[in-house]
């Protein structure tokens, strides 16, 4: 098992290095730079030498190979550099946003799991009945509805409904407070994005659960279990579900990893100060250090989640555990 983990970790290296090169090149191929954004976007008359000075101060005139080396070396000495925009250490900037993104991802995962697994099972067990069609329709709608649009509608709905019912329009807080500090405030803010993204997420997981269940229910060992006179409940929960969960766990984990950095649009809609928003800002501002580290963070989270999923697989599936 230890060897297996080691192997998996080793396999991550080329992926991460490739990702680093890719993101580094992509960013530098983009036209324009951060100093132009900083000084020209305001419409004031700023002289060219000030912009040049800004570039020098940010090290943008250094050779690209050196910049790349600095970037990669940073991971070995745990120094990710400073944001070109705020001048704050990147690790600090990311740290501020991490809790929020993590919490939204966790809440969305909970929403998704709670909805998806029972629905998926029901849908599979009652394949091709009205129940199945309704669940599938619900699931496919979840994938079809853009979650940012759903977000817009949720906020508008909240404002309109609260004004109609209570006279005062209410909207979720727009400033993040940690759940440990002010749980009511925290939940009032994050429950909505968690629902908006959780719906899509649950839709994906429902479909997966359904198809995995359908596949497993056709397996010989399920027939064996029935032939032993096991109740339908045991057949589903013990024999089928445990096998069907493997791909579902993968999907849940992957989606979770994607949520950690991939909520770029939803965070805009709900004004969440999360990693996705930071990413959009970084890209817009052409903030190289921030963007490349952030993308790498997302990639690392993804790759590690993959690793954990595989280990989880191994834990759930004895065929891998003992090989």
């Amino acid at each position, binding site marked *: 098992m230890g060897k297996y983990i080691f192997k998996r970790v080793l396999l991550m290296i080329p992926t991460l290095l490739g990702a680093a090169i890719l993101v580094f090149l992509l960013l530098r191929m983009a036209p324009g730079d951060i100093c132009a954004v900083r000084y020209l976007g305001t419409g004031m008359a700023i002289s060219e030498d000030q912009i040049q000075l800004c570039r020098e101060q940010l090290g943008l005139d250094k050779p690209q190979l050196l910049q790349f080396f600095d970037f990669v070396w940073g991971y070995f000495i745990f120094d990710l550099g400073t944001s070109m925009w705020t001048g704050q250490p990147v690790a600090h900037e990311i740290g501020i946003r991490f809790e929020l993104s993590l919490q939204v991802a966790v809440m969305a995962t909970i929403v998704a799991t709670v909805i998806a697994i029972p629905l998926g099972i029901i849908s599979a067990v009652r394949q*091709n009945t009205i129940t199945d069609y309704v669940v599938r329709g619900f699931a496919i709608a979840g994938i079809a509805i853009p979650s940012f649009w759903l977000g817009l509608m949720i906020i508008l709905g909240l404002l309109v409904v609260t004004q109609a019912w209570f006279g005062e329009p209410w909207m979720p807080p727009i400033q993040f407070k940690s759940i440990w500090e002010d749980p009511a405030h925290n939940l009032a803010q994050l429950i909505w994005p968690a629902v908006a993204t959780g719906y899509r997420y649950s839709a994906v997981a429902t479909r997966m659960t359904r198809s995995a269940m359908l596949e497993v229910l*056709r*397996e*010989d*060992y*399920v*027939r*064996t*279990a*029935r*032939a*032993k*006179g*096991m*109740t*339908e409940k*045991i057949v589903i929960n*013990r*024999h089928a579900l*445990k*096998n069907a969960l493997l791909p579902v766990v993968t999907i849940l984990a992957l989606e979770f990893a994607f949520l950690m950095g991939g909520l770029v649009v939803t965070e805009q809609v709900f004004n969440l100060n999360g990693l996705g928003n930071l990413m959009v800002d970084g890209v817009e501002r052409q903030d190289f250090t921030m963007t490349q580290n952030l993308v790498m963070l997302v990639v690392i989270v993804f790759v590690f989640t993959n690793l954990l999923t595989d280990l989880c697989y191994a834990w*759930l*599936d*004895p*065929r891998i555990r*003992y090989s």
Partner: protein
Amino acid sequence: MGALLEIDNLQTHFFTSGGTVKAVDGVSYDVNAGETVAVVGESGSGKSVTALSILRLIPKPPGEIVGGEIRFQGKNLAFCTEDEIREIRGRDISMIFQEPMTSLNPVLSIGMQLTEPMMAHMQMSEAEARERAVKLLELVGINEPRRRIDQFPHHLSGGMRQRVMIAMSLACEPKLIIADEPTTALDVTIQAQILELMKNLTREMNVAMIIITHNLGVVARYADRVNVMYAGRIVETGKASDIYHRPRHPYTLALLKSVPRMDRPRQAKLDPVEGQPPDLTRLDGGCSFRPRCKFAIDKCAESYPPLEEMGEQHFSACFRSKESLAEIEL
């Protein structure tokens, strides 16, 4: 003496987009306590569907038992409630399947899968069930049962898994075991081991067995009585020696003649059953073997021949069974 299991005019059809497949179309046979009955037939003859129908394991949709009776100790299994059939499954009638590689749940331990039916049907505690499971494993010839019981199916070879399946089928001391092609997926030497084990155990425990196979040799070695199936019906039934030495149905005859045999002098040429098995969605009212039959007469197209008694416990479904089939003697 009432038979342990009586199947009477069982009809199981599959409703597919291509039409209704009459997989089992009026099958009747009995199994007496303690005897081993074989059902022989080629693929698509309905032998497995019959077996699955007994325990109501036909996937629905598309399959459905549309008619007939399956009386087990007087109770009609074909149309009893789901709860009632569940009481029978695993306890009174258990089953062994063809594919040992896929018939065990890969994520549950051997012990778990073995003790499960005992705890469900025999009200055993977990510890009791475990003790019995160890004994069963020993009985089916698995070394170190105490270690094996905590292992998972993938640790075992195909033969070993089939032994576990046998142990599982014996767990609740059933009265009948249905073995659906239990050795087809196994190698010859392992096949012999497993069949021998099954024969000995069923004899010792006085368990009746239905063995379903396409291998005429296996039947010859292990069965007391034989049912020959073709296109969803039983065409001939009788004691093994009658079937092998005095077949009355042209299909049985042709089948026996078509296999190369080591116990006979080599033929210059094999004598195959010509043609292809029929499409089960497009059966007409006549004998379904008619297009391949060398003895077919006009009457064969008119109606399906009923099973007629040929001798003691020997029945054949052919209009010409009583004629002399001497010209094609064995």
